[in-house]
């Protein structure tokens, strides 16, 4: 078990790689690592309560999106014997406005549309699209290139992955610093150094 000292130290600040654009108005709590070329809009919330969050490169996290690594419902926050689980998010994902993601493992090139809700037990592979207002809280691995859409969360498989939003990312990385203050980035590697 990590002793309380190291626990406190690792919860201090976010580890933002050079090249990432993170607005000051966003709320980042806990041990969060953000890769280069990722854009975090104002009012986005990334909260690492029950463990660290590692976000890869080229991700787009829009306003009011909530990425939270929370404790499971039936466990009190202060119980001993709880291993902190790391939440990993791959590259080129898009978290649209107002979505909530608690999934512990998200692959690459996924799109989570507005107001979608991902539960704790879902694992997204690559190329998945979770449609607007769809709640996915089953305990399963969503296969590649799946599209979840509609009020009944119908599913289908598409033949190609969604394209990475390079144009949008470039545009935002130029325009956002004109209107918002940015959080300071840390020079060095993007993976956290742990004892």
């Amino acid at each position, binding site marked *: 078990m990590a002793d309380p000292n190291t626990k406190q130290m690792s919860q201090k600040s976010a580890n933002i790689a050079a090249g990432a654009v993170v607005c000051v108005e966003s709320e980042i709590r806990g041990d969060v690592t953000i890769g280069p070329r990722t854009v975090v809009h104002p009012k986005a919330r990334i909260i690492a309560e029950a463990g660290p969050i590692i976000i890869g490169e080229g991700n787009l996290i829009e306003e009011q999106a909530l990425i939270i690594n929370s404790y499971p419902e039936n466990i009190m926050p202060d119980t001993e014997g709880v291993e902190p689980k790391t939440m990993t998010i791959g590259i080129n994902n898009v978290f649209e406005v107002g979505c909530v993601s608690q999934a512990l493992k998200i692959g690459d090139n996924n799109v989570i549309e507005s107001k979608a809700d991902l539960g704790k037990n879902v694992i997204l592979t690559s190329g998945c*699209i979770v449609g607007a207002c769809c709640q996915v809280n089953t305990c399963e691995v969503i296969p590649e290139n799946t599209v979840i859409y509609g009020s009944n969360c119908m599913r289908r498989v598409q033949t190609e992955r969604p394209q990475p939003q390079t144009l949008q990312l470039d545009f935002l990385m130029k325009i956002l610093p004109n209107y918002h203050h940015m959080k300071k980035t840390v020079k060095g590697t993007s993976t956290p150094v742990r004892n």
Partner: protein
Amino acid sequence: MASLLQPDRVLYLVHGEKKIRSPLSTLYFCRYCSELRSLECVSHEVDSHYCPSCLENMPSAEAKLKKNRKRICNQLNENFRCANCFDCPCCMHTLSTRATNIPAPLPDDPSKTTMKKAYYLACGFCRWTSRDVGMADKSVASGGWQEPDNPHTQRINKLIEYYQQLAQREKLERDRKKLARRRPYMPLAFSQHTIHVVEKYGLGTRLQRQRPGAPITSLAGLSLKEGEDQKEINIEPAQALDEVEPLPEDCYTRPINLPEVTSLRQRLLQPDFQPAGASQLHPKHKHLLIKRSLRCRKCEHNLSKPEFNPTSIKFKIQLVAVSYIPEVRIMSIPNLRFQKECQVLLTLTNPVENITHVTLVGCEEGDPEDINSTAKVMVPTKELVLAGKDAAADYDELAEPQDFQDDPDVVAFRKSNKIGFFIKVVPQREEDGDVTVSFKIRHDFRNLAAPIRPSEEGDAPTEAIWLTHHVELSLGPIIA
């Protein structure tokens, strides 16, 4: 807003072929007959067709013209479908055209490549693209997409032609018989009503609608048509086969690939192919919607006629009931108790510009219209006076409020053309359902539609007639 106002708790009774009870907002008022009309006692006519996504108009005349120029099966496919817009075969949303840049070799110099635009169809909702079914990208933005041909087209064409001819002949014979027998009663056979009689194979509507109520000319039209198609169309009867294609051997053992299986709805939207696999779902042209006009069946006047332009939501003629009949709304209901008298607050709104006098009358014992009420109701006996609707009342603060001398026991408040009044309700049945009361409302109506005679009297251009409506209110459950 509809759920906030709860309009379906106040029902007005319509005297038509069927007795229909429905909220005033769904009813029409024929001011020539001075009666309420519901959707079921008017005749619906199609005005024009339009595409809901590109809003392109296709008047029925042009649609008919398209019919005459092309072959019949294509008519049934292309008629009433938009030429530019497609529906997603997966989720039925409208497809949008997207462009990508692909490198393509220049025609002059094969070694160099330039960026050419390639277009494909994509659905914004379920992310279906035309590449999913193997349709190649087109180089033109619109007009390049073709629907696949049905292998049975020719056979269906022939069958339809044959049956249309058959129907024509039957109709001709039927009409001749009617004409021969019913000479003095001719109008009956050819009144507008026969248009709505079920026509076989959809042929008659087109011919008869052009000449309503003119018996001889419609017959002439039919005979002309037959004169053109003198040739007889013969069809071969369908042949029954003894041998049927056997099922594949792994039919029971092959695991099902669920994303590939089409749903029933997806399948049945394409009745000519009904593909079982998602990789054969091709997009179809979008169905056109119609603009319809309503006509009173008794006096044949139009009750509702929309504008021709699909982008316009206004009406040329709009005789809706809420602009002629005072509307009763429930404002507040106290706790209803079995056999105890409760006071319910209702509002009455005057939609016309003149002062209206309204009298409420309770239903008599054994009233045939009063079938649903479960409580006794005591309505105010005095006549209620409603001020006219003044459009400028909000802006004109200096206007003196008209003095109406209301009885405070009856009238709770008065606000421009609306008053609130009390009724007393005594629930009679202690059961689970809603407490329902009914009463009759009698008001004066000035008919502005009546032709103005050259007035012999100086004033009073229109006389008021008194109309009575039966109103039913649903007040909610009894709270013990």
